[in-house]
């Protein structure tokens, strides 16, 4: 067990190193320079561009830049080129903003998909199953922003309530319940939109897992024991069907970062995805790279956690 953990950590650190190199290279070798060192900007004289380049170490060879960058990152000193703010602080702020969206989306996804998926596995081939299949694929297939616009326009023109942003602006000093509810209302649409795809995919997956498990011998054994059908499904079958989801659960963490650029842009939700997107536009390398790095760390941590969780949950695996 310990040796597994040790090995896996070392392996992940090596992977992380390569990820950092690859992302660094992608960004630095691609054409296009940060706007701060954009020589065309009439407000920047060539000397200033030069100074910026020096300040950001852009005049150094790539490997030195790499070392500088990750040294700064690991000591928490990286600053955004755009506004000289600490990158980690910025990301943390955005992270906190993304968090509610992520949590509500995850709760919706993970609560809804199971009953939907299980039910359609139980009534396999029936009307419910077919229609849930159809709707799942409908939700997977609809272009996110198209769906978002339709929803927004529907809500705004029909109910005349604001939906954009994290709260209603100019609400002023209302009671805290109002404020909280208002925030929850603003969470609703983006998180539902963010969750739709997840629900669709996950419920399909739950269904196929349940089907897989349902045809197992031990389920038959349980039935032969006289266990009530419900208990057969929700105890014997589900417990086994759930095992792979432990792995998936470890991997939802990185979803926090990748987030949804599109949803966040449409809803002007100041989350991680949008920050990353704007950083790309501004060629704000420190932010792009840091986000990349952190998401890689999260992915690796996620896989690690899910490996360990799997070991804990599945009695068959002991290392």
């Amino acid at each position, binding site marked *: 067990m310990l040796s597994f953990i040790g090995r896996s950590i070392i392996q992940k650190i090596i992977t992380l190193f390569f990820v950092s190199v690859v992302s660094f290279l992608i960004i630095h070798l691609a054409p296009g320079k940060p706007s701060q060192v954009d020589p065309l900007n009439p407000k920047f004289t060539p000397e200033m561009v030069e100074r910026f380049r020096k300040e950001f170490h852009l005049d150094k060879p790539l490997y030195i830049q790499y070392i500088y960058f990750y040294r700064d990152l690991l000591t928490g000193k990286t600053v955004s080129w755009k506004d000289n703010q600490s990158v980690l602080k910025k990301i943390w702020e955005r992270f906190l903003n993304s968090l509610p969206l992520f949590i509500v989306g995850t709760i919706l996804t993970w609560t809804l998909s199971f009953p939907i998926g299980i039910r359609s596995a139980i009534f396999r081939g029936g009307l419910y199953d077919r229609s849930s299949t159809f709707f799942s694929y409908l939700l997977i297939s609809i272009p996110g922003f198209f769906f978002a616009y339709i929803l927004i326009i529907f809500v705004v023109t029909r109910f005349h309530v604001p939906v954009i942003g994290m709260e209603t602006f100019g609400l002023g000093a209302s009671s805290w319940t109002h404020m909280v509810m208002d925030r929850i209302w603003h969470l609703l649409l983006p998180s539902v939109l963010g969750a739709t795809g997840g629900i669709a995919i996950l419920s399909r997956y739950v269904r196929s897992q349940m089907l897989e498990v349902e045809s197992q011998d*031990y389920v038959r*054994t*349980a039935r032969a024991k*006289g266990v*009530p059908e419900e208990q057969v499904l929700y105890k014997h079958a589900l*417990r086994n069907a759930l095992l792979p989801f432990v792995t998936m659960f470890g991997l939802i963490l990185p979803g926090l970062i990748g987030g949804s650029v599109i949803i966040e842009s449409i809803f002007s939700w100041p989350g991680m995805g949008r920050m990353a997107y704007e950083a790309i536009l501004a060629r704000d390398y420190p932010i792009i790279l840091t986000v990349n790095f952190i998401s890689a760390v999260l992915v690796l941590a996620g896989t690690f956690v899910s490996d360990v969780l799997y070991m804990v949950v599945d009695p068959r695996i002991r290392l």
Partner: protein
Amino acid sequence: MDNILLSVQDLKFYFIGNERVARALDGVSYEVSKGETVCLVGESGCGKTVSALTILRIIPQPPGKIMGGKVLFNGQNLLDLSEEEMQKIRGNHIAMVFQEPMTSLNPVFTVEDQIQEAIMVHEMVDEKSVRERCIQLLKDVGIPSPEERLKDYPHQLSGGQRQRVMIAMALACDPDLVIADEPTTALDVTIQAQILNLFQELKQKRQMSLLYITHDLGVVANIADRIYVMYAGIIVEQGDTSNIFHNPCHPYTQGLLKSLPGRAKRGSKLHSIPGTVPDPAHKPGSCPFHPRCDFAIQACGTEFPRVCDYGEGHLSRCPVLYENKVPKVN
């Protein structure tokens, strides 16, 4: 007869697919008396397991569908019972031991959980006594140091031990009838013998009936009181063990017996029945065995064979042999 515990009468069970129907059971009838061991013998794919599962109604419907017949247990037609009533029968009155001990135990629950559950779904008992009963059961089925084993997960047990746990589970509520569906097929020969002995022992101790399903005639000879030979969804021959073994009256039974390794003469080639069991979706409406039968006459291909009575409850579905009195084997 009061003595009859289970009586399956003209049971028809079909699998209905999109475009085809597989006739898994095509009018099967058999009986198990109290305290009796009955064997259901046949090649794989002939409907043995399905018939056992149909008794307990734990076969998915659809695609399966019971098309007719009765399953009388203590005089009560199980097919008429509601699902809840059926649940009370399963495990409690009729228990089942499955073929694959490796996969028939739920991998994520401990042995204790699984045996306990078998008791708890039928009886209101406190935890402590359940635990004691579990230990006792494990002792009964011959598992050493049962207290420790209780905490184990199925994957930590050997194949034989798992089958013993399965048996313990089946016995948990003192059922009247245990259906054992090829319980030894997946095991080593030595363990097979142990398990068989265990069955014998338990049967005597607990005075239950045993419906033993197997393809292995060797096993049958050891334990069965009566034998039903199944082929392609119908019972082709039935009778006492000695009758069947000494006076097989159906070509299929004869073929099966001939292919027993022990019976062949040393050095001679082993007998085998040519061909394979027909696809249940495409089997002929007449005698299903006739394409493989040495004695087939033209009528075999057109008429469904009638039952021929040899007396002493020895029945066969081969009018050809019955009428021609073709010599017995050996």
